[in-house]
């Protein structure tokens, strides 16, 4: 294991602030991260198309389906086939545009991506009077940086990780917090009260949600006994064909809950509905990015989608076995290394893309919280739930293994994680679930009445 120079720089910076070292470290991390961006950037762009298509289908609309590549084809034919007569040029364009693949491209709205990009680049970089110049201009870059830096430690495959850091989980959590500074800068620098309110909301919210997210990661760290994301993935290895049973999420109901909390906390940290306090377009017009336009706005949008992917990556890595296949891992390991890497990246991409789709799905389903409700959810629901889960997890480990420290089991099948074997495993699930069910039944009996008028409105369902 090599401590990357970036981490040295980071440690230096943490122990005593030295801007020069920090800049060098950031530059080195950026260089390391670049190959990872080659994977993340297209996915972030495609995330926007997913968002728009899914939203359109849910709302009985068409979504983007107009931008084809007809124009590009026409241009190319005109330039390349200048010696042909105009009529045959047109016929050629028609032929090419009639290819089924291109039609599908158009219907899927992929052309919209290019059109959006051209539009954003082509738009005027409008900076209103009264903005705080440097802060206003710098905020989008910082947002993008904060969104991309954590990818340095995410293992995309067995050997595809930019930096092998022993404290990777901590690093990801810490670096992703940079975004909040960018949001505050955007809110303050815009010289707009709506932006300012949005920025302040963003700060309050992101800082609060760092706690449940941190606690959820702490649960995994407790279970696996390491903070190295690569080792956490390795810890979830299971040699059988049902290799998904090695994943953290099925180990214990508490880990399952922590995965949910990590996901929703992540949702709140990347400011997505129902937690989009900072943008809240019906309240704050567009919140912190009200005054942004063109490419600067595009950077915020890109940062948002990148953060969504980051949340997907973190949940997949910590709880869903990372890049490992759910149906048998051994057959992949026997393949050639390059094929192995490609398969792993593909599996990992499928996992985090599924989370992106889930986030999109949530966005077009739920209304937005109010500011105080977001805070209440964090401090009165998620944090106590995290503590309950951590306690339960520790208790499980104590009962099963007699110790809660250094639970380094190595690469063992899932059933053997607990010393009691399959029965213990089932009990570890059954007892907490039973307690929860009892509590829920009692609670529903006491508070679960619904007004009869509402029952009538929802067609008699309870």
């Amino acid at each position: 294991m090599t401590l990357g120079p970036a981490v040295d720089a980071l440690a230096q910076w943490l122990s005593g602030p030295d801007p020069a070292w920090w800049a060098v470290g950031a530059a080195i991390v950026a260089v390391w991260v670049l190959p990872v961006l080659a994977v993340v950037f297209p996915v972030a762009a495609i995330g926007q198309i997913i968002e728009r298509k899914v939203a359109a289908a849910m709302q009985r609309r068409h979504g983007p389906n107009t931008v084809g590549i007809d124009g590009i084809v026409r241009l190319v034919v005109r330039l390349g086939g200048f010696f042909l007569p105009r009529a045959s040029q047109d016929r050629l364009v028609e032929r090419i545009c009639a290819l089924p693949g291109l039609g599908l491209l158009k219907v899927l709205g992929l052309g919209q991506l290019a059109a959006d990009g051209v539009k954003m680049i082509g738009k005027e970089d409008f900076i209103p009077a009264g903005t705080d110049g440097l802060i206003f201009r710098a905020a989008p870059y910082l947002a993008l940086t904060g969104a991309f830096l954590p990818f340095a430690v995410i293992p995309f495959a067995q050997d595809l990780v930019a930096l092998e850091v022993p404290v990777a989980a901590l690093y990801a959590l810490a670096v992703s917090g940079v975004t909040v500074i960018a949001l505050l800068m955007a809110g303050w620098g815009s010289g707009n009260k709506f932006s300012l309110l949005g920025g302040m909301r963003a700060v309050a919210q992101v800082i609060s949600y760092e706690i449940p997210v941190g606690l959820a990661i702490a649960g995994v760290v407790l279970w696996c006994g390491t903070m190295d994301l690569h080792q956490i993935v390795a810890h979830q290895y299971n040699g059988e064909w049902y290799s998904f049973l090695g994943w953290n999420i099925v180990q214990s109901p508490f880990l399952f809950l922590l995965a949910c909390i990590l996901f929703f906390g992540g949702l709140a940290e990347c400011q997505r509905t129902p937690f989009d306090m900072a943008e809240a377009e019906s309240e704050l017009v567009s919140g912190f990015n009200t005054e942004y336009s063109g490419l600067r706005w595009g950077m915020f949008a890109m940062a948002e989608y990148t953060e969504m992917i980051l949340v997907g990556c973190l949940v997949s890595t910590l709880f869903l076995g990372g890049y490992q296949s759910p149906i048998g891992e051994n057959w992949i390991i026997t393949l050639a290394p390059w094929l192995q890497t490609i398969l792993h990246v593909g599996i990992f991409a499928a996992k985090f893309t599924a989370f992106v789709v889930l986030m999109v799905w949530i966005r077009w389903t739920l209304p937005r919280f109010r500011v105080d409700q977001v805070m209440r959810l964090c401090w009165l629901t998620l944090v106590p739930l995290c503590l309950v889960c951590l306690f339960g997890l520790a208790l499980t480990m104590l009962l099963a293994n007699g110790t809660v420290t250094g639970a380094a089991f190595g690469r063992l099948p899932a059933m053997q994680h607990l010393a009691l074997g399959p029965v213990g495993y089932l009990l570890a699930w059954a007892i907490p679930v039973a307690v929860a069910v009892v509590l829920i039944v009692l609670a529903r009996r006491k508070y679960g009445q619904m007004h009869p008028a509402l029952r009538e409105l929802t067609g008699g369902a309870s």
Partner: protein
Amino acid sequence: MILAWVNGIYEGVDSFIGGMRLTARFLVENLRGQGGATAVTRQYPQEPAVVVGNRVRGHLFNKAEICIVCHACDKACPVDCFVMDGERDENNKMRASRFDIDLSKCIYCGLCVRACPTDSLSMTTGFEVDPHQDAARYLFRRSSDQLDKHLDEPDVVRMARLANQPREGLAADDRAWLDGIVNPAGEHLIGMYGMGYFTPEQKAKADAERERKKKEKEAAAAAAKAAKAALEKAAAEKALAEKEAAAAVAKPEAGA
């Protein structure tokens, strides 16, 4: 307290899952229709907008051959968007020599159509107001048989350029082209009053007619005034005579 807390979490999760299930069902339902077949929206410029029913109140349209210039529409119109002139034809029937509908004023209420006694006014199912496709309909007077003639954008630009010049000053080919688009003898003219293309003959005819009517009216008024004055004079003389006669009658009585 713990139960309330648990209940809160349960309710949240329950309604979250319920909502997600519902939107997933929407998603599946709408994806099943190929190419967004169950989408209720329409790709407007590519797919034409569908007009339902036959009572649609689109463009206002006057069938000039049966219009009798009765001004019923003019009287019923809340926004005064009609300007019309009439003349008698060889069968001594009223015909519109000019029938302008100011479509920038029209509110498409349809009161004029209800008021029309001959059903010459109607509202068409066409309603496009896309300036690139149909500007000519709104900006220029065009005859009814040319209403659906398509004008390309260059044509519209050319028309705008030409229509603001006096017709006499136009080049011969421009005049010929414009006469082909805007029928000077068109019975039904539709467009924006005051901005349109008038043939001088038509304008002179309408003006002369109006002038003649005005003079006639003035003459009639003068005649009526004169007649009235004469009548009054006669009445006054008569009254005087009667008075004198009465006085003449009274005098002898007094004398007697």
